[in-house]
Protein backbone atom coordinates (compact mmCIF):
# COMPACT_ATOMS: atom_id res chain seq x y z
CA UNK A 1 0.00 0.00 0.00
CA UNK A 2 1.49 3.32 -1.09
CA UNK A 3 2.33 5.80 1.63
CA UNK A 4 2.07 8.81 -0.69
CA UNK A 5 -1.09 10.95 -0.82
CA UNK A 6 -3.40 9.92 -3.65
CA UNK A 7 -7.07 10.55 -4.52
CA UNK A 8 -7.37 6.74 -4.78
CA UNK A 9 -6.95 6.56 -1.01
CA UNK A 10 -10.37 8.15 -0.45
CA UNK A 11 -11.76 4.84 0.83
CA UNK A 12 -9.44 5.15 3.84
CA UNK A 13 -11.53 8.17 4.93
CA UNK A 14 -14.11 5.62 6.03
CA UNK A 15 -11.74 3.63 8.24
CA UNK A 16 -12.52 4.74 11.82
CA UNK A 17 -9.77 2.64 13.45
CA UNK A 18 -7.42 4.66 15.65
CA UNK A 19 -9.22 7.85 14.68
CA UNK A 20 -10.61 10.59 16.92
CA UNK A 21 -14.08 12.02 17.43
CA UNK A 22 -13.64 14.63 14.67
CA UNK A 23 -13.03 11.91 12.09
CA UNK A 24 -16.05 9.92 13.26
CA UNK A 25 -18.14 13.03 12.59
CA UNK A 26 -16.35 13.43 9.23
CA UNK A 27 -17.20 9.79 8.34
CA UNK A 28 -20.83 10.08 9.52
CA UNK A 29 -21.32 13.22 7.45
CA UNK A 30 -20.00 11.56 4.31
CA UNK A 31 -22.01 8.35 4.74
CA UNK A 32 -25.24 10.26 5.43
CA UNK A 33 -24.56 12.58 2.47
CA UNK A 34 -24.04 9.62 0.13
CA UNK A 35 -27.18 7.94 1.49
CA UNK A 36 -29.27 11.10 1.05
CA UNK A 37 -27.97 11.60 -2.49
CA UNK A 38 -28.86 7.99 -3.37
CA UNK A 39 -32.29 8.53 -1.82
CA UNK A 40 -32.84 11.68 -3.92
CA UNK A 41 -32.42 9.66 -7.13
CA UNK A 42 -34.69 6.85 -5.90
CA UNK A 43 -37.25 9.46 -4.88
CA UNK A 44 -37.21 11.07 -8.33
CA UNK A 45 -37.58 7.69 -10.06
CA UNK A 46 -40.55 6.77 -7.84
CA UNK A 47 -42.20 10.16 -8.44
CA UNK A 48 -41.82 9.56 -12.19
CA UNK A 49 -43.62 6.20 -11.80
CA UNK A 50 -46.52 7.83 -9.91
CA UNK A 51 -47.18 10.14 -12.84
CA UNK A 52 -47.99 7.09 -15.03
CA UNK A 53 -51.53 6.69 -13.64
CA UNK A 54 -53.79 6.08 -10.60
CA UNK A 55 -53.12 2.32 -10.50
CA UNK A 56 -49.40 3.02 -10.02
CA UNK A 57 -50.24 5.42 -7.22
CA UNK A 58 -52.35 2.80 -5.40
CA UNK A 59 -49.63 0.18 -5.89
CA UNK A 60 -47.08 2.56 -4.46
CA UNK A 61 -49.19 3.38 -1.38
CA UNK A 62 -49.56 -0.36 -0.68
CA UNK A 63 -45.81 -0.77 -1.13
CA UNK A 64 -45.04 2.21 1.13
CA UNK A 65 -46.94 0.60 3.99
CA UNK A 66 -44.61 -2.43 4.06
CA UNK A 67 -42.47 -2.55 7.25
CA UNK A 68 -39.24 -2.73 5.24
CA UNK A 69 -40.11 0.55 3.46
CA UNK A 70 -40.92 2.16 6.79
CA UNK A 71 -37.50 1.12 8.08
CA UNK A 72 -36.04 2.76 4.98
CA UNK A 73 -38.00 5.93 5.69
CA UNK A 74 -36.68 5.95 9.23
CA UNK A 75 -33.12 5.54 7.88
CA UNK A 76 -33.59 8.47 5.46
CA UNK A 77 -35.00 10.75 8.15
CA UNK A 78 -32.27 9.69 10.59
CA UNK A 79 -29.61 10.47 7.96
CA UNK A 80 -31.24 13.86 7.30
CA UNK A 81 -31.36 14.77 10.99
CA UNK A 82 -27.77 13.66 11.67
CA UNK A 83 -26.41 15.38 8.55
CA UNK A 84 -28.24 18.64 9.23
CA UNK A 85 -27.23 18.86 12.89
CA UNK A 86 -23.62 17.91 12.20
CA UNK A 87 -23.67 20.42 9.35
CA UNK A 88 -24.49 23.19 11.84
CA UNK A 89 -21.42 22.17 13.86
CA UNK A 90 -19.19 22.06 10.77
CA UNK A 91 -20.45 25.46 9.58
CA UNK A 92 -19.89 27.07 12.97
CA UNK A 93 -16.44 25.62 13.63
CA UNK A 94 -15.46 26.05 9.97
CA UNK A 95 -15.76 29.78 10.44
CA UNK A 96 -13.79 29.79 13.67
CA UNK A 97 -16.65 29.73 16.16
CA UNK A 98 -16.49 27.41 19.18
CA UNK A 99 -13.69 25.33 17.63
CA UNK A 100 -12.48 24.26 21.05
CA UNK A 101 -15.90 22.86 21.86
CA UNK A 102 -16.33 20.90 18.62
CA UNK A 103 -16.35 17.55 20.47
CA UNK A 104 -18.89 18.74 23.03
CA UNK A 105 -20.99 20.21 20.25
CA UNK A 106 -20.89 16.89 18.39
CA UNK A 107 -21.95 14.90 21.46
CA UNK A 108 -24.76 17.37 22.26
CA UNK A 109 -26.03 17.51 18.68
CA UNK A 110 -25.93 13.72 18.31
CA UNK A 111 -27.98 13.41 21.54
CA UNK A 112 -30.44 15.81 19.96
CA UNK A 113 -30.38 13.71 16.77
CA UNK A 114 -31.09 10.54 18.79
CA UNK A 115 -34.07 12.27 20.35
CA UNK A 116 -35.31 13.38 16.92
CA UNK A 117 -34.87 9.86 15.51
CA UNK A 118 -36.80 8.44 18.47
CA UNK A 119 -39.69 10.86 17.80
CA UNK A 120 -39.72 9.82 14.13
CA UNK A 121 -39.66 6.15 15.17
CA UNK A 122 -42.66 6.65 17.49
CA UNK A 123 -44.53 8.53 14.77
CA UNK A 124 -43.79 5.92 12.06
CA UNK A 125 -44.15 2.67 13.98
CA UNK A 126 -46.26 3.29 17.07
CA UNK A 127 -48.74 6.03 16.20
CA UNK A 128 -49.43 5.23 12.55
Amino acid at each position, binding site marked *: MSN*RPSPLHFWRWFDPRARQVG*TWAFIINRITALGLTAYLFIHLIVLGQLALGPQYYDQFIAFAKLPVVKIGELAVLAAGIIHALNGIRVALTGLGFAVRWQKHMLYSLMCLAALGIFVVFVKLFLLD
Partner: protein
Amino acid sequence: MSSIRWKVTFIITRQRSKSKCYQQPFLLEVDPDEYILDCIERIWAFHDRSLTFRHACHHSTCGACGMRVNGVEKLTCITAIRSVTQDGGTVHIEPLRNFPVLSDLVVDMSTFFLRLEQVNAATVLPLQEACLPGEIKDQPVIESGQYERLVDCIECGLCISACPTALTSSSYQGPATLAAIQQGCQPGNQPFQILLADHEDGVWRCHSAYECSAVCPSNVDPAARIMNLRRRILTQHIRSLFSRQPEEAKNE
Protein backbone atom coordinates in the same frame (compact mmCIF):
# COMPACT_ATOMS: atom_id res chain seq x y z
CA MET B 1 11.51 3.14 36.43
CA SER B 2 9.85 0.22 38.15
CA SER B 3 11.02 -3.37 38.69
CA ILE B 4 7.97 -4.72 36.86
CA ARG B 5 8.76 -6.46 33.58
CA TRP B 6 6.32 -7.00 30.72
CA LYS B 7 6.68 -9.20 27.67
CA VAL B 8 5.63 -7.18 24.66
CA THR B 9 5.75 -8.05 20.96
CA PHE B 10 6.77 -5.16 18.72
CA ILE B 11 5.54 -5.59 15.16
CA ILE B 12 7.53 -3.24 12.98
CA THR B 13 6.66 -2.37 9.40
CA ARG B 14 9.79 -2.82 7.35
CA GLN B 15 10.32 -1.48 3.85
CA ARG B 16 13.18 -0.56 1.61
CA SER B 17 12.53 2.12 -0.99
CA LYS B 18 10.30 0.82 -3.80
CA SER B 19 10.25 -2.73 -2.38
CA LYS B 20 7.22 -4.43 -0.85
CA CYS B 21 6.66 -3.78 2.85
CA TYR B 22 6.36 -6.53 5.44
CA GLN B 23 5.91 -6.76 9.16
CA GLN B 24 8.59 -8.16 11.44
CA PRO B 25 7.87 -9.16 15.07
CA PHE B 26 10.35 -8.70 17.93
CA LEU B 27 9.61 -10.05 21.42
CA LEU B 28 11.07 -7.85 24.16
CA GLU B 29 11.04 -7.88 27.92
CA VAL B 30 10.37 -4.27 28.87
CA ASP B 31 9.74 -1.96 31.78
CA PRO B 32 6.19 -0.61 31.21
CA ASP B 33 7.42 2.91 32.00
CA GLU B 34 9.99 2.79 29.22
CA TYR B 35 9.32 4.78 26.08
CA ILE B 36 8.62 3.25 22.68
CA LEU B 37 11.76 4.85 21.21
CA ASP B 38 13.92 3.15 23.88
CA CYS B 39 12.54 -0.22 22.77
CA ILE B 40 13.07 0.54 19.08
CA GLU B 41 16.66 1.45 19.88
CA ARG B 42 17.03 -1.82 21.79
CA ILE B 43 15.67 -3.76 18.81
CA TRP B 44 18.20 -2.01 16.59
CA ALA B 45 21.08 -2.61 19.04
CA PHE B 46 20.44 -6.24 19.98
CA HIS B 47 18.15 -7.76 17.36
CA ASP B 48 18.52 -6.16 13.94
CA ARG B 49 21.12 -3.55 13.04
CA SER B 50 19.52 -3.01 9.64
CA LEU B 51 16.43 -1.35 11.17
CA THR B 52 16.29 2.32 10.22
CA PHE B 53 14.47 5.05 12.16
CA ARG B 54 14.94 8.72 12.99
CA HIS B 55 15.58 10.13 16.44
CA ALA B 56 17.65 12.80 18.12
CA CYS B 57 16.77 14.64 21.30
CA HIS B 58 14.73 12.04 23.23
CA HIS B 59 12.66 14.79 24.91
CA SER B 60 10.07 15.91 22.33
CA THR B 61 11.97 18.94 21.09
CA CYS B 62 13.38 17.84 17.74
CA GLY B 63 10.26 16.16 16.32
CA ALA B 64 12.34 13.49 14.59
CA CYS B 65 10.86 10.33 16.09
CA GLY B 66 7.25 10.67 14.90
CA MET B 67 5.76 7.27 14.01
CA ARG B 68 2.43 5.50 14.14
CA VAL B 69 2.02 3.45 17.28
CA ASN B 70 -0.96 1.08 17.09
CA GLY B 71 -2.28 3.22 14.26
CA VAL B 72 -2.04 6.56 16.08
CA GLU B 73 0.56 9.22 15.36
CA LYS B 74 2.91 9.61 18.35
CA LEU B 75 6.24 11.06 19.26
CA THR B 76 7.83 7.78 20.33
CA CYS B 77 10.29 9.46 22.73
CA ILE B 78 7.46 10.50 25.06
CA THR B 79 5.07 7.59 24.55
CA ALA B 80 5.30 5.16 27.45
CA ILE B 81 4.77 1.45 26.81
CA ARG B 82 2.00 1.23 29.41
CA SER B 83 0.00 3.93 27.61
CA VAL B 84 -0.34 1.82 24.46
CA THR B 85 -0.35 -1.85 25.52
CA GLN B 86 -0.36 -4.30 28.41
CA ASP B 87 1.68 -7.28 29.58
CA GLY B 88 1.69 -9.89 26.81
CA GLY B 89 0.32 -7.35 24.33
CA THR B 90 1.56 -6.16 20.96
CA VAL B 91 2.65 -2.77 19.70
CA HIS B 92 2.45 -2.06 15.98
CA ILE B 93 5.05 0.46 14.81
CA GLU B 94 4.55 1.99 11.36
CA PRO B 95 6.02 4.96 9.50
CA LEU B 96 4.02 8.21 9.28
CA ARG B 97 1.31 8.28 6.62
CA ASN B 98 1.25 10.66 3.63
CA PHE B 99 5.05 10.85 3.28
CA PRO B 100 7.07 8.65 0.89
CA VAL B 101 8.90 5.93 2.82
CA LEU B 102 12.66 6.05 2.40
CA SER B 103 13.48 3.04 4.54
CA ASP B 104 11.60 1.19 7.31
CA LEU B 105 10.36 3.93 9.66
CA VAL B 106 12.11 6.81 7.91
CA VAL B 107 9.98 9.00 5.66
CA ASP B 108 10.89 11.77 3.23
CA MET B 109 9.71 15.04 4.82
CA SER B 110 11.53 17.38 2.44
CA THR B 111 8.35 18.71 0.76
CA PHE B 112 6.88 19.44 4.19
CA PHE B 113 10.00 21.34 5.29
CA LEU B 114 10.07 23.25 1.99
CA ARG B 115 6.47 24.35 2.49
CA LEU B 116 7.30 25.64 5.96
CA GLU B 117 10.29 27.46 4.48
CA GLN B 118 8.11 28.92 1.74
CA VAL B 119 5.77 30.57 4.26
CA ASN B 120 8.68 31.80 6.40
CA ALA B 121 7.55 29.73 9.36
CA ALA B 122 9.11 31.46 12.34
CA THR B 123 11.03 29.60 15.02
CA VAL B 124 10.88 32.47 17.50
CA LEU B 125 8.31 35.27 17.72
CA PRO B 126 7.78 38.21 20.07
CA LEU B 127 5.68 37.11 23.05
CA GLN B 128 2.61 39.13 22.09
CA GLU B 129 2.60 37.52 18.65
CA ALA B 130 3.41 33.92 19.62
CA CYS B 131 0.40 33.53 21.83
CA LEU B 132 -0.84 30.08 22.62
CA PRO B 133 -4.32 29.06 21.54
CA GLY B 134 -6.76 30.73 23.90
CA GLU B 135 -4.40 33.57 24.83
CA ILE B 136 -5.10 37.15 23.83
CA LYS B 137 -3.29 38.08 20.61
CA ASP B 138 -2.52 41.69 21.42
CA GLN B 139 -0.80 41.33 24.75
CA PRO B 140 0.82 44.58 25.90
CA VAL B 141 4.52 44.92 25.17
CA ILE B 142 6.51 44.95 28.40
CA GLU B 143 8.48 48.20 28.62
CA SER B 144 11.55 46.63 30.19
CA GLY B 145 12.25 44.57 27.11
CA GLN B 146 10.90 42.51 24.29
CA TYR B 147 10.39 38.90 25.36
CA GLU B 148 10.35 36.15 22.82
CA ARG B 149 8.82 32.73 22.86
CA LEU B 150 9.77 29.64 20.92
CA VAL B 151 7.07 28.84 18.43
CA ASP B 152 5.52 25.57 19.52
CA CYS B 153 5.57 23.67 16.23
CA ILE B 154 8.45 21.16 16.30
CA GLU B 155 7.87 20.19 12.65
CA CYS B 156 7.33 16.53 13.50
CA GLY B 157 4.78 15.99 10.69
CA LEU B 158 2.28 14.09 12.88
CA CYS B 159 -0.50 16.47 11.79
CA ILE B 160 0.11 15.72 8.11
CA SER B 161 0.11 11.99 8.80
CA ALA B 162 -3.18 12.14 10.71
CA CYS B 163 -4.98 14.49 8.30
CA PRO B 164 -7.59 12.74 6.08
CA THR B 165 -7.34 15.56 3.53
CA ALA B 166 -3.57 15.10 3.20
CA LEU B 167 -4.30 11.41 2.57
CA THR B 168 -5.87 12.19 -0.80
CA SER B 169 -4.18 15.43 -1.85
CA SER B 170 -0.44 15.94 -2.22
CA SER B 171 -0.91 19.62 -3.08
CA TYR B 172 -2.72 20.47 0.17
CA GLN B 173 -0.58 22.87 2.22
CA GLY B 174 -1.27 20.88 5.39
CA PRO B 175 -2.08 21.79 8.99
CA ALA B 176 1.43 22.77 10.14
CA THR B 177 2.00 25.15 7.21
CA LEU B 178 -1.40 26.79 7.60
CA ALA B 179 -0.87 27.15 11.35
CA ALA B 180 2.48 28.82 10.61
CA ILE B 181 0.77 31.28 8.25
CA GLN B 182 -1.84 32.07 10.91
CA GLN B 183 0.89 32.66 13.46
CA GLY B 184 2.84 34.97 11.19
CA CYS B 185 -0.23 36.92 10.13
CA GLN B 186 -0.92 39.82 12.46
CA PRO B 187 -4.24 41.70 12.65
CA GLY B 188 -4.24 44.45 10.03
CA ASN B 189 -1.23 42.95 8.31
CA GLN B 190 -1.76 40.66 5.32
CA PRO B 191 1.56 39.14 4.26
CA PHE B 192 1.99 37.45 0.90
CA GLN B 193 1.79 34.07 2.62
CA ILE B 194 -1.93 34.59 3.04
CA LEU B 195 -2.27 34.01 -0.72
CA LEU B 196 -1.06 30.45 -0.11
CA ALA B 197 -3.70 30.01 2.56
CA ASP B 198 -6.57 31.63 0.64
CA HIS B 199 -6.36 29.02 -2.06
CA GLU B 200 -8.06 25.76 -2.99
CA ASP B 201 -5.09 23.89 -1.51
CA GLY B 202 -5.07 26.12 1.56
CA VAL B 203 -7.56 26.64 4.37
CA TRP B 204 -10.58 25.88 2.17
CA ARG B 205 -9.47 22.29 1.58
CA CYS B 206 -9.57 21.38 5.29
CA HIS B 207 -12.53 19.10 6.05
CA SER B 208 -12.74 19.75 9.80
CA ALA B 209 -11.74 16.29 11.03
CA TYR B 210 -9.60 17.86 13.81
CA GLU B 211 -7.15 14.94 13.72
CA CYS B 212 -4.22 17.37 13.48
CA SER B 213 -5.04 18.96 16.83
CA ALA B 214 -5.73 15.57 18.41
CA VAL B 215 -2.26 14.21 17.58
CA CYS B 216 -0.18 17.40 17.92
CA PRO B 217 2.32 16.74 20.72
CA SER B 218 3.18 20.41 21.10
CA ASN B 219 -0.06 22.29 21.80
CA VAL B 220 -0.07 24.07 18.44
CA ASP B 221 -3.76 23.24 17.84
CA PRO B 222 -3.48 23.58 14.04
CA ALA B 223 -7.22 23.03 13.48
CA ALA B 224 -8.16 26.05 15.62
CA ARG B 225 -5.55 28.13 13.79
CA ILE B 226 -6.85 27.04 10.37
CA MET B 227 -10.41 27.98 11.36
CA ASN B 228 -9.19 31.31 12.74
CA LEU B 229 -7.36 31.98 9.47
CA ARG B 230 -10.50 31.14 7.51
CA ARG B 231 -12.49 33.66 9.51
CA ARG B 232 -9.84 36.35 8.98
CA ILE B 233 -9.72 35.71 5.23
CA LEU B 234 -13.50 35.69 4.98
CA THR B 235 -13.75 38.92 7.01
CA GLN B 236 -11.19 40.49 4.70
CA HIS B 237 -13.18 39.42 1.60
CA ILE B 238 -16.45 40.76 3.04
CA ARG B 239 -14.79 44.05 3.98
CA SER B 240 -13.31 44.40 0.50
CA LEU B 241 -16.82 44.11 -0.98
CA PHE B 242 -17.90 47.21 0.91
CA SER B 243 -14.74 49.28 0.61
CA ARG B 244 -13.60 51.26 -2.40
CA GLN B 245 -10.67 49.85 -4.32
CA PRO B 246 -7.60 52.17 -4.47
CA GLU B 247 -7.80 52.21 -8.28
CA GLU B 248 -11.41 53.40 -8.22
CA ALA B 249 -10.61 56.06 -5.65
CA LYS B 250 -7.73 57.31 -7.81
CA ASN B 251 -9.95 57.66 -10.88
CA GLU B 252 -12.46 59.86 -9.05
